[in-house]
């Protein structure tokens, strides 16, 4: 039934939805702006203590101890940063921290991912027992383990050695990584997995080829946690590494407030600011992997 009225109706049907789309778009943009404002407000409140730390790092000593606090320094100075870097063994300590954390992240991610795949995807005797063991280790209070662990490392001649700390951090962080990655893998919808099984490749091959991209955001989140925990870990690093040139940044930081005299607050804040920089760099490098749309195309493959 083609008639002029029908053509008009069809044309009107094309025009009306466009107007509705425009208002919907405007509403979406307004909503986005509102959320952005909320986001910025949250940012300011959340980051304030970090801002305070950085702002203090630039203040001269007289301002730091002043009776009324000031937001920004009126005479900002780089002296604290210079003093911090000039402290004995600063660059050795940076190198040590980077080596340890690099090894711990690389090793723990590979080893934990393999174990997590086994626990999440394979049925075998001892699966449940192993999972319970992993979470059990996580529940142990660390304070009690320090001295016995030191005794073990002393037997292996690994005290005062970076490798000793790497193994210690692995032991602390592997259970966490396995537990978390297993959870991420379990969360992947079955449809995406089953798509991979069709082409007849081995189970393990399918898992690594399909699972890895799907679980990438989880891997990144876990690796950031491992990075930060290892970077900031103090108790074991302090006990195991006794020579100052073998120590990590966190232990080096403790020398700022460990004297019997006054604490160098400006120096401590400057040093802490420096300590945070590699973490932020690492995160900025990997953060792009936590993004939507990574899983798009997996089903089609």
């Amino acid at each position: 039934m083609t008639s002029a009225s029908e053509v008009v109706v069809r044309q009107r049907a094309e025009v009306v939805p466009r107007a509705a789309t425009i208002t919907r778009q405007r509403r979406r943009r307004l909503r986005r702006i509102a959320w952005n404002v909320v986001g910025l407000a949250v940012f300011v409140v959340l980051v304030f203590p970090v801002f305070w730390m950085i702002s203090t790092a630039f203040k001269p000593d007289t301002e730091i101890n002043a009776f009324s606090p000031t937001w920004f320094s009126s005479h900002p100075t780089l002296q604290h940063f210079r003093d911090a870097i000039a402290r004995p063994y600063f660059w050795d300590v940076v190198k040590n921290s980077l080596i340890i954390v690099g090894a711990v992240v690389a090793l723990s991610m590979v080893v934990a991912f393999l174990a997590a795949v086994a626990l999440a995807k394979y049925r075998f005797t001892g699966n449940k027992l192993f999972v319970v063991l992993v979470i059990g280790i996580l529940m142990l209070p660390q304070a009690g383990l320090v001295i016995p662990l030191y005794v073990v490392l002393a037997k292996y001649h690994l005290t005062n050695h970076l490798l000793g700390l790497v193994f210690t951090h692995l032991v602390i962080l592997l259970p966490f990584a396995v537990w978390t990655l297993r959870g991420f893998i379990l969360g992947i919808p079955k449809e995406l997995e089953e798509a991979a099984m069709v082409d007849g490749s081995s189970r393990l091959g399918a898992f690594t080829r399909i699972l890895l991209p799907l679980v990438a955001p989880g891997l990144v989140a876990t690796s950031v946690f491992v990075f930060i925990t290892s970077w900031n870990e103090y108790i074991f690093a302090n006990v195991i590494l006794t020579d100052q040139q073998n120590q990590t940044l966190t232990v080096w930081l403790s020398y700022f407030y460990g004297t019997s005299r006054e604490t160098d607050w400006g120096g401590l804040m400057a040093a802490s600011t420096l300590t945070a920089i590699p973490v932020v760099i690492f995160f900025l490098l990997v953060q792009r992997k936590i993004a939507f749309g990574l899983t798009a195309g997996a089903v089609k493959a």
Partner: protein
Amino acid sequence: MTVAAEATAHRSRRRPRLKRIAQASIPYLLILPVILVITAILGYPLYKLATLSFQQYGLAELIQRKGVWIGLDNYSSVLHDEIFWRTLLRTVIFTAANVVLTIGIGTLLAFLLVRVSSLVRVLLTAGLVLVWSMPAVVAVQVWFWMTNFQNGILNHVLTQLHVGDYSQHDWYATTFWKLAMVTLLIVWGAIPFVTITVYAGLAQVPRELVEAAEIDGAGPLRVFRDVTYPILKPIFLILTSLSIIWDFGVFTQPYLLIGSSHVDTSNYLMGVYVFIEGYAHSDFGRGAAISLLMLLMVATMSIFYVRRMVKMGEAAR
């Protein structure tokens, strides 16, 4: 069956046992590295922790490397200590408050991250990582500074905003406020992990499934219930179980923020209690007993979530 398929089936029939053994051993090989590392380093400490708890083991015994076997005396002395039970109750309430706040606020922030534009998102995530990256000792110092009654910025801001006269207000005057400040500090430090993990979980939600559900006419709440939540469920279970474990045994923040000269039996938390009663007094046997009791408590508190997680693995296969 095609010729090729028949040939494949025939080949797998010819070496079935070898292939089956190889297939079956794969999971064990995968978990082997973890088992090796943990046994080699943690095996002896775990054994020592257990045996120490049944011994009288102080500094002198540590030096002589020989303890005195006293059976369950350590446990009985701890369990008969009124301070232990009061501390336990206080810690349970403290843990509950911390976990609820951490997971709640963290999840809300993760949803906020979804809704903001990408520039604000990068800013927020960078901010979260900055917060996350502050070592606990530094965070405590900064926090104490901000809240101290003499020249803390918190009092300054509150007074300026005319919320009230907060000049020289001591935020650590009562036990409740001491622990409240510690809670604030811990929740603040724990939010980034929750937010980023939940956000990563949300990123794993495939867009196709969401769009498919929306095309079928589902509103945002149903999309959440049917598509998002099942994927996020294991993540929430993990985050809750981890938060319970960590908040129950926390030591650095309460000990340093309340200050070693103000920490006493009226504001002990389990992490501080085990440190002072066990290790500061060099009573390692008692410390080991308390540690194992703490393990038991934490296991009890988190059993609900842990069992769900363990069962989830079986259902998925």
